[in-house]
């Protein structure tokens, strides 16, 4: 249960050019590493802020807001990499209790539902980002920034998640496999 679907780190199907497969995997791995790096940079910046503020030198009032955006972007943009790694927690009660053939069908059903859910998220994330762009919505906090680039992370994540679920479905349907996958 709750785990971490082994070998979830998958591959693109056999008919997809090798360079495209490699680029896709590298992009996901890059997003994962970027999320980790962003968290580390956040740790350093917040530490600097605490030290410098207590020394009375300077403080970074924008840091609180930047922290919020870092956590948000890291979560959404690295979610497809986590899915690729098979690391999104899940309760696999039914698939593990069923005979292999039925388990395979249930896995495909779950991947199909995941695909639909991701596409709905992408569609409505895209709608609200586009609306924000058209209206020229602006976020007024410590920083004043347009809202649409923030919201645009939702459709981007939704599309990448949908691609990953589609690739899982393709693999389950015998669309090829790649033993080197998942090394992100």
């Amino acid at each position: 249960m709750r785990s971490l679907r082994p070998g979830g780190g998958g591959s693109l199907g056999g008919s997809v050019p090798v360079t495209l497969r490699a680029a896709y995997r590298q992009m996901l791995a890059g997003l994962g590493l970027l999320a980790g790096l962003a968290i580390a940079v956040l740790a350093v910046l917040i530490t600097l802020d605490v030290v410098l503020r207590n020394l009375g030198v300077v403080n970074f009032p924008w840091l609180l807001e930047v922290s919020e955006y870092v956590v948000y972007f890291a979560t959404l943009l690295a979610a497809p990499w986590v899915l690729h790694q098979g690391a999104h927690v899940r309760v696999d009660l039914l698939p593990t209790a069923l005979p292999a053939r039925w388990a395979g069908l249930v896995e495909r059903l779950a991947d199909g539902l995941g695909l639909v859910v991701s596409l709905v998220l992408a569609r409505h994330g895209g709608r609200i980002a586009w609306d924000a762009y058209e209206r020229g919505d602006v976020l007024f906090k410590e920083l004043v920034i347009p809202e649409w680039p923030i919201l645009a992370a939702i459709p981007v994540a939704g599309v990448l998640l949908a691609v990953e679920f589609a690739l899982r479905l393709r693999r389950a349907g015998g669309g090829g496999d790649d033993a080197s996958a998942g090394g992100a």
Partner: protein
Amino acid sequence: MDWLAALWLMLGLLLGLMALGLPVAFAFLGVNIVGAFVFLGGEAGLDQMARNTMAAVSNFALAPIPLFLLMGEILFHTGVAFQAIDAVDRLIARVPGRLSIVSVLGGTVFSSLSGSTIANTAVLGSALLPEMLRRGYHPTLAMGPIMATGSIAMLIPPSALAVLLGSLAGISISKLLIAGIVPGLLMSAAFLGYIVLRCRLDPSVAPPYEVSKLSAAERWLPFLKHVVPLFGIFLVVVGSIVAGWATPTESAALGSVASAVAAACYGKLDRRSLVRALRETAKISVMILFIIAASVTFSQILAFSGASNGLLAVIGGMGLSTFALLLAMLAVLLFLGAFMDQVSMIMITLPFFIPLATSLGLDPLWFGVLMLVVMEISFTTPPFGLLIYVMKGVAPASVTLRTVYLAALPFIFLELAVLGLILAWPGLVTWLPLLVRPQ
């Protein structure tokens, strides 16, 4: 649609999607799509659901989660945690169940440095389990203490789950973090007592062996060198919160940087281990936070459809005592914990539990700690406690899942006993947070 139908629709669909094996974040998204369309106004409701994903995680209160995880991952992947456990190992003389005692003491030390139960269990399992099994330790005394102590990481600060619970339930995160210390230490003490007693009654469960003779310097110097400085990290994290110098996010950042500095001072911070630590931090953080992003609309739909209030009214009309209702809530958590992860447990139960606890006049801090303790127990409850599977992953292939279940059982009873103590004497958890100064 009346509230009961709404409740069945939301909970039934959620559990159904989870049972299919859809990752829980996507199960929440799926049920929210249906719920938002039905109860929040069709397309507009779906737009609102998408917008909520941003609002849910662009929240400063959640920032300590990745930072606390980063602390533990740095100490784990650089090997600093292993050398600390080795130093504790040298310190313990020839006592019954020696290696089990090392695992409890070493795990408690690492719990004060790591916000991740998985990292804690993996460190202890890979450092101590092979030696325990080689020396003929009974599985209960080999794997039980590792899993039980591994889960203490979510009680003793830094604790990522305490941050999550505090931010979502509106409980002071600083106080909740500090309140976890006493239950965590009580559990360690109970585990130690059980190990010693069990080994005295039946020495064959942990065959005694000759410990190589070490001079006092050989025993104490590694401890002074590899463990004592690490308490500095704990002091930075907890001290800065208690003194009111730093918010939980700031203390978590200080702790992460202090962990990296400690690893660098030991000459163990290389690029490879740092990259691994960053990747693992990102993986676990995103796994937790994406569930939050996906599930926040769930409680809104339950409230908007009338399901939350409807259920609470029914419960209120039962005429049960406050204590009975409290026990019922904890029993529900224990039941859910046998089948699902802690974040899902929080997201499913909070919409009901927090209003109920408030209406009953329960101390939110006490209630929060009780929830944390139950979630800690559920890390090892069969059939699907997460740490059971982490343990199975690091154990030799010959160890069956049933053996791991049985190893966890005595420690689950000990944890339930500690839960009983906290229920009987709330002061056990509420006195220490009184020392926290407001920021």
